[in-house]
């Protein structure tokens, strides 16, 4: 009983924090139908700003800066105000230009904003934890309830603050004219515009209040756990989003309810399940996935919030942009269109170039980097099947990659070598068996995971896949017997062919290139057939595709399966080329990175993923020569995020968009038609 009581008390504190952050997601979603992934980072900024304002001095950008040393309430108010202003600014720059864009665009932008903010925070405050200064109330002795439940005074303050903020917000929405306007826009944006509610002001208010709530949640969280860190917003952000979805996104009481449920479930789960603390992150996501499956609109939500947005990023070019920018793109487009028209000849020329590069590059260092380019290009190609061709945002793709890497590593190292003492060189052929096997296994996983998502669209789909990806990662960390847990698996043998070790960087590069040819070839054959046409039709207009006889649910699953196959297939080679894997290799950040590479290069093209990977990975290395980047390596990620935001606004189709992929089988056209065309 005491134990239960203590768990419930802890759950309430955590739940109060989740609820506050959930309000941020829900408020903005209600008004602009945007899942703003960046709230996790605003949460983190709230914590950093508060801590900084409370300290006498902090180290910013490596230099000690004197600080006012406010008390917690004053510092918190300052931090909330600053974060709210930042939230409005982000909306103004990154989201407002995309108000009428397809829903994928702002979603991707918000992910990019997230990356930018997190990298910048790490640049400014450094990679280490910042200790959260102790507030004098925290030094008071804890309150004891029923003789056995300990609650610190700060825990009570957290709960009281959350309650007051929630009630204040409810009153604001019910009473003030701005609040009523907010509710009206949430009910029906079109109607709100018609009756003359200044929508932009309402949206700005929603962002301001939402960001303020996120900051408040973040500073309370940091206060409770005693530190601030640049990546601290990530998991609580996801949890808060889960809470918002749980309660029914768009509903404020729902957010409060969802937050509390999540906090309690997590506290109870970690208290009662065997090894519960390790699994507590998985608990929330299992809850999320189960709920989205059974009741996608959440507990208090309205079903129509899950409507599909029609049109894709590739439908039309943006009208924005300076003349020189558009002129530059027009030049690129001209060249690409010509190259794409050349078809197989251009592809062969590209391949020949890659082979030549592989032959002449002298340095092992650069060969390793080019191998990485090819690997990431292949992975991005797999992701591109689902995102670029079928138009479904997938934030759980890394899971397939992980399945492939782990399958081959477990078989080679943990089973055959450690258990049976078989030397990897004796069973070199297993690698070639594992490639398709892992592909099939991952495809099976993809179908398994894809099935419940079929009824979901747009944003919910993205959240669901994200939940899956996290579950797989948590499993990889915690299922020690299977995966070796966080230690990872060492000593994975380099690829080997008929006893000839292919461990040298040059051999690996060519191995990767050969796989890439297979991957692109297979994807291209599928895309240039009725299957690819069905995918693109789904991307462009799901309902119309269905009316043309396309069983859209089945073809979405096929897209998942194809993308999963590629992920698993490449994952096998990845493990053998790295020779060491750990759960860290398969984080959501990797997924986001792959997504950014596809978008950078061009969604729905064959070369796009490789162009994106080439630009990014080569830049990542070259930039290391700059002293500034040496001091602040994270700024490179911030730059990638900024580039992506700019692309989303000015050229959502990506750099190589005009390398348009033909969707008919090469050579299947009647001869006279070719002449006419």
């Amino acid at each position, binding site marked *: 009983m005491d134990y239960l009581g203590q768990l419930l008390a802890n759950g309430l504190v955590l739940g109060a924090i989740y609820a506050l952050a959930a309000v941020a997601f829900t408020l903005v979603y209600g008004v602009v139908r945007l899942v703003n992934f960046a709230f996790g980072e605003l949460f983190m900024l709230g914590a950093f700003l508060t801590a900084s304002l409370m300290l006498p001095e902090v180290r910013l950008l490596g230099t000690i800066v004197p600080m006012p040393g406010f008390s917690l309430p004053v510092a918190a108010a300052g931090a909330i105000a600053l974060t709210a202003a930042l939230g409005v600014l982000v909306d103004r720059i990154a989201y407002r230009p995309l108000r009428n864009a397809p829903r994928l665009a702002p979603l991707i932008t918000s992910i990019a904003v997230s990356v930018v903010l997190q990298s910048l925070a790490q640049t400014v405050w450094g990679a280490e934890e910042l200790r959260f200064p102790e507030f004098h109330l925290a030094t008071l002795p804890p309150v004891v309830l029923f003789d056995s439940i300990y609650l610190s005074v700060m825990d009570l303050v957290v709960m009281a603050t959350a309650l007051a903020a929630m009630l204040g917000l409810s009153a604001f929405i019910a009473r003030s004219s701005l609040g009523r306007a907010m509710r009206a826009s949430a009910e029906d944006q079109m109607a709100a515009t018609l009756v003359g509610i200044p929508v932009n002001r309402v949206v700005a208010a929603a962002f301001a209040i939402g960001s303020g709530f996120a900051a408040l949640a973040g500073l309370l969280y940091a206060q409770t756990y005693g530190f601030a860190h640049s990546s601290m917003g990530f998991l609580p952000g996801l949890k808060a989003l889960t809470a918002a979805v749980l309660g029914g996104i768009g509903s404020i009481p729902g957010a409060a309810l969802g937050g509390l449920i999540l906090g309690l479930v997590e506290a109870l789960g970690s208290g009662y399940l065997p090894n519960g603390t390790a699994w507590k992150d998985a608990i929330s996501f299992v809850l999320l996935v189960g709920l989205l499956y059974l009741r996608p609109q959440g507990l208090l939500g309205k079903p129509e919030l899950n409507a599909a947005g029609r049109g894709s990023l590739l439908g*039309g070019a943006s009208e924005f942009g300076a003349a020189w920018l558009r002129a530059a793109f027009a030049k690129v487009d001209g060249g690409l269109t010509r190259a794409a028209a050349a078809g197989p000849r251009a592809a062969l020329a590209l391949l020949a170039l890659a082979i030549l590069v592989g032959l002449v590059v002298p340095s092992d260092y650069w060969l390793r980097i080019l191998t990485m380019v090819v690997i990431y290009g292949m992975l991005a190609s797999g992701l591109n099947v689902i995102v670029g061709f079928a138009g479904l945002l997938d934030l759980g793709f890394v899971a397939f990659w992980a399945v492939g890497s782990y399958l081959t590593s477990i078989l080679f190292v943990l089973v055959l070598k450690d258990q049976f003492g078989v030397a990897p060189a004796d069973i070199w052929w297993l690698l070639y068996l594992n490639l398709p096997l892992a592909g099939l296994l991952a495809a099976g996983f993809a179908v398994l995971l894809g099935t419940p998502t079929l009824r979901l669209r747009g944003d919910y789909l993205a959240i669901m896949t994200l939940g899956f990806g996290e579950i797989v990662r948590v499993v990889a960390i915690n299922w020690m017997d299977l995966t070796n847990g966080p230690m990872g698996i060492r000593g994975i043998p380099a690829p080997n062919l008929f006893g000839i070790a292919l461990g040298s960087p040059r051999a690996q590069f060519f191995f990767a290139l050969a796989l890439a040819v297979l991957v692109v070839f297979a994807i291209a054959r599928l895309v240039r057939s009725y299957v690819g046409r069905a995918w693109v039709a789904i991307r462009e207009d799901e309902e119309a595709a*269905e009316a043309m*006889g396309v*069983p859209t649910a089945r073809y979405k699953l096929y897209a998942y399966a194809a993308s999963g196959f590629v992920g698993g297939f490449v994952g096998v080679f990845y493990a053998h080329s790295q020779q060491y894997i750990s759960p860290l290799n398969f984080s959501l950040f990797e997924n986001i990175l792959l997504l950014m590479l596809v978008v950078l290069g061009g969604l729905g093209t064959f070369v796009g993923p490789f162009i994106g990977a080439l630009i990014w990975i080569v830049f990542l290395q070259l930039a290391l020569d700059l002293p500034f980047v040496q001091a602040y390596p994270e700024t490179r990620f911030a730059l990638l995020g900024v580039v992506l935001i700019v692309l989303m606004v000015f050229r959502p189709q990506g750099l190589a968009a005009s390398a348009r992929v033909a*969707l*008919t*089988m090469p050579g299947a056209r*009647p001869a006279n038609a070719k002449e006419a065309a």
Partner: protein
Amino acid sequence: MKPLTGAPSPAPLLEARAITVRFGGLEAVGGLDMAVARDAIHGLIGPNGAGKTTVLNVLTGFIRPTEGELVFDGAEIGGLGVNGFARRGLARTFQNIRLFGAMTVLESVLVGAHQRFSANALSLVFARRSARAAEAAMIARAYELLEFVGLGADVADRVATTLSYGHQRRVEIARALISAPKLLLLDEPLAGMNAVEKSEIADLVRQVRAQGIAVLLIEHDMQVVRRLCDHLTVLEYGRKLADGPPEDVLADPAVQAAYLGRAR
């Protein structure tokens, strides 16, 4: 209900019985009975907002009616998904053209042929002869249909959404026809067209019927309707106002009253 004249065949191609559609409190269609004969050009007319598009959405599975049942080609089809309706032989166009962005005309038309492909993933990846033959056959058919709807082969490789409005409508019709449907449902195919184009599309509709495909079309232009259709169903406020051969229906005072001062 008036007896169906000019339809001696006892089993119509499509039969809708007591269809009611409610959107919240609004009854968009109320207790509609309707039958489309196997060789008909069947007009569905009525003032704006009468519920014509809603009926067409019901007949193609887009909207599941609140009440009522649908029998197509002798089988109950009410429970199917949208693609199931298409597979049974119901093909449609949309009042607001819905072509797939970023696809060429040829590719868009080929999407309509989706159900006529059957190659599995392996034969696609290895481009087996059967898969290539099926693709070539459908591409050839697509070119035929483009010509049939009055588009030259030169538009085949243009991005469909960049064509003129009239041409986009023709692409939509070709996309619907390539599935070899039994019934083609057209939602205002003549809207926004000039007189020449209108008569071209009317001829096209007649040719479609001549190929043994029944046509259900929604249209506001009474001149065209009178000449083109051999059976009319008139809707007003979601209810059936009249049903029968055009000359009878259009002479009906109730129908004239419904249109008086409302339509052209």
